[in-house]
C-alpha cells in the first residue's frame, strides 16, 4: 500500500475550534446552583499537530473533550471539528476517541472488538478485514487477536483502544489520559504510536496529568485549572526559560570546561550549573528490563532446545 502524502496543516482550517465554551452541571432539584466545569474556553487546534490539554484532576479536561466529541452538550458556546458542529453526528466521521479507562466488551476478542467498531463506522467485508489486520499490526496485538479482552493487560487494553479509535482512518484522534495506569514499557509504546500518528498527518488531541510524558510528545499545550484556560501556546516557547541557555558537550576535557567557565565569568552572563548529563530514569528502567527479557528469552529457548 502506498504512503499518501501528508496533509499540510494550513489546509482546510483548524482541526478543532472551541468558541466561548461554558459548561455548568446542574444539581438536581437546585436549579440555581451548579458546578462550573468549563468557563469561557477558547481553543484552536491546527491540523497535523499534537495538542496536550493538561491540568489536575477535576479541571475540566474530560468534560471539554466530551463536548468536542458531542457526548455532552455545552451550556454556552460552540465546538467544531474540521468546521462541522460537534453536535452533528457526521462530525464524528473524522474523529477517533479513546476514553479514560475504557472497558469495552470483555467477552469479545481483540479482532471481534475491532470488527464491531468497524461496522459501526460503516466498514464491511474485505476492506474491514484488511484494516483490522493493519491496525492490529500497528499496535502490536496481532498475536493476541483471538484472545478475549478480559485477559488483556492494561497496556494491551489501551492499545486495542487506540486501534478501535483508528478503525475508520480518522483525521483527528482524541485520547483521554492515554498512559494513565500503564507501565513504563507500555507507556513508551503508546507514546511512540502517537508520534507515528503525527508523522502520518493525523491530528492528536490528548489530555493528561502526567506532565513529563506530555512534554515529550506535544507540540502545543493548554493548561486548564478549575475550568479556565490559564496557559496556552507552543510547548517549547512556554517552557523555555528565556534567559538561560544549555550546552550539551560530548568528550569535553576538564581543561575545556574550565576555559568555558572563565569566559562566562568575564562576560555579563552567570554560570548557574555545570554537571554531567543524565539519562532519564525511564530509559534506564526500559534498558534494564529489556536486557532482562532478552536474557530470559534466550534461557527459555535454551531450555526448549534441551527438551526431548
Amino acid at each position, binding site marked *: 500500500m502506498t504512503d*499518501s502524502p501528508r496533509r499540510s496543516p494550513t489546509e482546510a482550517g483548524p482541526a478543532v475550534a472551541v468558541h466561548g465554551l461554558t459548561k455548568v452541571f446542574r444539581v438536581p432539584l437546585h436549579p440555581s446552583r451548579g458546578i462550573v466545569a468549563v468557563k469561557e474556553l477558547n481553543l484552536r487546534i491546527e491540523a497535523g499537530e499534537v495538542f496536550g490539554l493538561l491540568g489536575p484532576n477535576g479541571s475540566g479536561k474530560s468534560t471539554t473533550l466530551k463536548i468536542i466529541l458531542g457526548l455532552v452538550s455545552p451550556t454556552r458556546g460552540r465546538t467544531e471539528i474540521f468546521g462541522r458542529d460537534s453536535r452533528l*453526528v457526521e462530525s464524528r466521521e473524522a474523529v477517533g476517541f479513546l476514553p479514560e479507562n475504557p*472497558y469495552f466488551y470483555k*467477552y469479545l476478542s481483540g479482532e471481534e472488538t475491532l470488527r464491531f467498531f468497524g461496522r459501526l463506522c*460503516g466498514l464491511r467485508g474485505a476492506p474491514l478485514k484488511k484494516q483490522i489486520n493493519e491496525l492490529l*499490526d500497528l499496535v502490536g496485538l496481532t498475536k493476541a487477536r483471538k484472545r478475549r479482552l478480559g485477559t488483556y493487560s492494561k497496556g494491551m487494553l489501551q492499545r486495542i483502544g487506540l486501534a*478501535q479509535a483508528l478503525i475508520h482512518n480518522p483525521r483527528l484522534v482524541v485520547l483521554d489520559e492515554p498512559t494513565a495506569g500503564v507501565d513504563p514499557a507500555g507507556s513508551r509504546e503508546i507514546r511512540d504510536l502517537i508520534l*507515528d500518528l503525527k508523522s502520518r498527518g493525523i491530528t492528536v488531541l490528548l489530555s493528561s496529568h502526567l506532565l513529563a510524558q506530555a512534554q515529550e510528545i506535544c507540540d502545543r499545550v493548554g493548561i486548564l485549572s478549575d475550568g479556565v484556560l490559564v496557559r496556552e501556546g507552543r510547548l517549547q516557547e512556554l517552557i523555555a526559560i528565556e534567559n538561560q541557555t544549555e550546552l550539551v558537550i560530548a568528550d569535553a576535557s576538564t581543561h575545556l570546561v574550565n576555559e568555558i567557565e572563565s569566559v562566562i565569568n568575564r562576560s555579563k552572563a552567570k554560570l548557574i550549573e555545570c554537571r554531567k548529563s543524565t539519562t532519564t530514569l525511564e530509559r534506564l528502567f526500559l534498558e534494564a528490563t529489556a536486557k532482562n527479557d532478552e536474557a530470559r528469552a534466550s534461557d527459555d529457548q535454551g531450555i526448549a532446545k534441551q527438551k526431548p
Partner: protein
Amino acid sequence: MTKGNDLTFQPFNDSTTGKLHRAFSFSRVLAITSNTLTELTRLRVFYVLLVFGLLLIGSSVFMAQFSFQQEFQILKDVSLGAISIFTSLLAIVATARLLPQDIEDRTVYTILAKPVPRFEYVLGKIAGVLLLLAISTLVMSAAFLAVLYLREQTVIQTTLKQLAGAPADQVNEALKLIRSSAFNIDIFPGIIIIYLKACLLAALTLFVSTFATTNIFTIVVMAFIYFIGHLEATAREYWLQEHSSGLLTRIFLAIIALLFPDLQAFNLVDDIVAGTAISMAVFAKTALLGIFYTTIYTLLAAFIFYGREL
C-alpha cells in the same frame, strides 16, 4: 512492537471523506443488535431461566393419573404459563441492565464517539433483546410441542390397544377426540401474543431504565407496573362507568387507566387452550396493540436518552 511495515497503514485519504454520512444505517443498527444478543446470551440468568422453563414443561408429563383430556389441559396450561412468565421475566431482567451497564463501563462513549446517532444505539439494543426473546420463545415452544406430541402419541397407542377389534368409525371417533384435545392450531397465535407481551415489557423496561438511577429501581418499578398493568382494565371500567366514587378515587383510577398498558389484553392463551378459537380480527388487533406499545416505549426511551448527560 513491530514498526517495519508501518507505512502500510493508510492515513486519512479522500476515499473516506467521500463516503456520505447516512442519517440512518441499518448495518450500524445490526452491528449493535448482534453485539447485544451476544452479550445477553452470556448472561447466566438467561440460561437459568431457560432451563427452568424447560424443566417445568417437561415435568407436566407426570400428570398421567388423570384422563387424557385433563392431562393435556394441564400440560398446555403449565407449558404456556411457563413460556409466559419466563419471557416476561427475561424481558425485564435482561433489558434493565442494558443501558446502565454500558454507561457504567464507559463503553457507551466509544460507541457514541463513532458516527452513530443515539437513536440507532437504542434501537440496536432493544432489537437485540427482542431477538433474544424470540429465540427463547421458539426453543420453549418447540420443547412444549415435542412433549405434547409425545404424550399424544402415547395416549393414541394405548387407546388403539384398548380398542383393538372395535368397529372402525368408533376407533376413528376416539382418535379424533384425542387429537383435538391435544393439538389446537390456535396455540400458535396465542404464543405470538405472549411474545408480543414480552416485547412490550422489554421496551417499557428500556424506557424506565433511561431515567432510573439504579438497576434495582428499574426492576422494582417494572414489577409494580406488571401488577398494575393487569389491573388497568378493571380500573379503566370503574373510572369510566362508576359515578358514585369520590373525586380522588376517580383521579387515581384515571391516572392508572391513562398511564399503564392493559396487560390483560395479552392473556388470551387461557381461553385458547379452553377451545376458544381466535379470529383474525382479534389476533391482528391485539398484535397491533402490542406493537404500538413497544414502538412508543422505544421512541420515548430514545427521546430521554438523547437528553442524557453521559
